[in-house]
């Protein structure tokens, strides 16, 4: 390793191990437990590369990419019951949770990038967790279809979205407990658990991912968001921290540039 200017330390690496020996300086970086990064060798310094920070993937635009019109109707109707609106705080629809879910399902999460989906597939015990062959996107697609076909039979050809509030709650409860069984290989409890978890994710995650609109869910509970330093507040026991919530992209009220 040659001496380097300490102010300009660069990643030094050799592709494919010492025997390959072909130095390269421009291989795409990959981070995260995602698979597919290039093998590298590091020796002689802390490798730091400019412009490589692994910033979060911001959701852009406002169009839906995953849900069909029918699916979107279902999702809006369902999350509106999971977290309904009132004066206390936003409902999931107001918080843009359906949009959050759409973009999550259109991306790596929807593809099941962190799920093992290989066979053989068996139902297993509840303690063995998720055992379906479906990726999350496939599960949403199949479950929405199966739930609408369930309500069509049970409620005189109505889709889930067309039901009244208490009927919607009854159906959701039936999915949650597994009292309702669905066609198409869909485990109702597994789908409900995923839908509820993802709904709360969209409600409480950083707005950069498309939900938690205006940080209203954070305001409701009093969470200041991606705040960096609370040192001065550690021993101010019992006092309300007066900071309004802040997200990765700042907050309203910051001065325009």
């Amino acid at each position, binding site marked *: 390793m040659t001496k380097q200017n300490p102010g300009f330390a660069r990643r030094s690496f050799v592709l*494919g*191990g*010492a025997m390959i020996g072909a130095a390269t300086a421009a291989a795409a970086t*990959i*981070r*995260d*437990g*995602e*698979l*597919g*990064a*290039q*093998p*590298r060798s*590091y*020796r*002689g310094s*802390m490798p*730091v590369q400019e412009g490589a*920070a*692994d*910033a*979060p993937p911001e959701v852009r635009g406002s169009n839906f990419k995953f849900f069909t019109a029918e699916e979107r109707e279902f999702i809006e109707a369902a999350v509106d019951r*999971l*977290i309904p609106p009132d004066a*206390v705080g936003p409902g999931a629809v107001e918080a843009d949770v359906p949009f959050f879910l759409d973009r999550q399902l259109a991306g790596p*999460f929807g593809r099941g990038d*962190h*799920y*093992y989906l*290989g066979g053989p597939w*068996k139902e297993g*015990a*509840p*303690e*063995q*967790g998720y*055992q379906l062959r479906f990726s999350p996107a496939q599960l949403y697609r199949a479950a929405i279809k199966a739930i609408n076909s369930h309500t069509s039979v049970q409620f005189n050809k109505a889709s889930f979205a067309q039901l009244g509030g208490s009927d919607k709650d009854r159906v959701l409860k039936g999915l*949650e407990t597994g009292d309702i069984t669905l066609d198409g290989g869909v485990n109702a409890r597994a789908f409900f658990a995923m839908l*509820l978890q993802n*709904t*709360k*994710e969209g409600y*409480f*995650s*950083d707005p950069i991912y498309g939900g938690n609109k205006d940080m209203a869910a954070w305001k409701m*509970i*009093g*969470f*200041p968001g*991606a705040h*960096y330093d*609370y*040192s001065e*507040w*550690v*021993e101010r026991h*019992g*006092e309300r921290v007066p900071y309004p919530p802040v997200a*990765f992209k700042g907050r309203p009220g910051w001065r325009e540039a």
Partner: protein
Amino acid sequence: MATTLKPVDAVMVGFGWTGAIMSQQLCDAGLNVLGLERGPWRDTPTEFATGFAQDELRYMWRHHLFQNVSDDTLTIRNNLNQEALPMRHLGSFLLGTGVGSGGVHWNGQIWRFLPSDFQTKSHNQERYGKNAVTDYDLTVQDWGVTYDELELHYDAFDKLCGTSGKAGNLRGIIHSGGNPFEGPRSDEYPTPPMKQTYGPTLFGQAAASLGRHPFPHPGGNLSQSYVNPLGCQLGKCTYCGFCEKFGCGNYSKASPQTTVLPYLMRKSNFELRTECEVLRIELTPDKKRATGVTYVNSAGEEFFQPAEMVFLGAYILHNVRLLLLSGIGQPYDPRTGEGLVGKNYAYQTMSSVNVFFDDKIINPFIGAGALATVVDDFNGDNFDHSGLGFIGGAYIAGMVTGGRPIEMMYTPKGTPAWGLEWKHSAAKNYLRSFNLSIHGSSMSSRGNYLDLDPTYRDVFGRPMLRMTFDFNENDFKMSNYLTDRTAEIARAMNPREIKENRRKGSWSVVPYQTTHNTGGAIMGDNPQNSVINKYLQSWDVPNVFSMGAGAFPQNPGYNPTATVAALTYHAAQHIIARYLKAPGPMVHA
């Protein structure tokens, strides 16, 4: 066909805490050391800068820093009568990957085990009778190493991390403000304890009012800036509340990145290769010696890496799997009780009590991974177990590691999980509630073990590891007793209400519990009861060393990392002093 590479003195399989510490020690002794890590490189400014580190969705729920199980996982079941199925999504434990591994996204909770924890079998037998260690099919053992032998190595890890805390037992003298039950420490903690927020403070007052002995949790989130013996500087923690599951952008949490790598990476006799997965350890035909390891990189190229010594540092689950895949040692059979590799897999028996106030603002988002006030009165053998029907215990912690709202939303008993009532409860209780954590021991028992799955295979065609585990009766009794003691403290805080979350039913892979998996490659004083000796050296293949919590014969009621590190330093010291001069078994059976 594997390409044969230039030999090295020592190869590390996996590169988290153990790989980093062992590499640093051996490089300083002049050896050529190679680290092979199956995940990517990671450094603070690139992967978890302060501008975006505090992201609950990405790191906790989308597993951004965790092992991706999509092409390699393990199979799980509760007992021998079940068919094991793949863990298709992380849940109960969050496995690390990449450089630094779990050391990047841990909480930084730094504990020493009690002196009696290293003699679980002999100590409890002597005090409570012969059956105390065999009831409920327990298979607990002594470690073959003592607290006194490890003390200076615990101290070395404290000094590496800059651990914040207050000694309770300094060279045998009990000091107020620390843990009066701990083993004697040769030195004070390098940095003072963290300041305590409201919740832990209330817990400490209530515990003291009941005659317990509260003290600040020791940890690797630093109360002040610190330069460690390797010259690495850590910064003062800002209590941002994003430690476990997250990397620290502030250089305030001890990790291989903050405490070892800046030193190690500059050494010319060290090399680190990432995206390189070791498939197996290669042995001589007589299986008495390892010749090196075969690995495949992410480009699909296969290599044979010759090495004089092979160090397994790939977390316990992968260490045990590599031993089994490489034919080192005899696999454990729970039906006959014969064999040792995979034996005594244990976990941690967690329960908790949530506390809800009307009149107190707790501000749970002001937190840190090891920010807690703790009582250790009911851990290990710190209390008389006579007539209780169990051994072991737990520490009880009034702990506020953060207020991440998706994960840490406590609602009172009977609150539905959704609907207006849930929302109102969340709005009402978020600022006014916190958690008392009960960090219980896990005693090994006959039916809990690791072996190779007969059905499921990874992308390389290797059998996955199969985990057979359930909580045993000893641990349920312990956990219930400890939860009772915790509820007493909770009620002494005069809250509006409390909620007990007792350990009930079979172990489930779904809810997060801890990433404290232990055993399977256990240490001991002879080859009839253990896979490795006190220097982490394989009894069967003496140039193979298995590091990590796989060495634990059972899991005490503390977080494992400091003991994992102390065992690594202890092994390194003896390898350098003795093995390098005369390679071969360091303990003669």
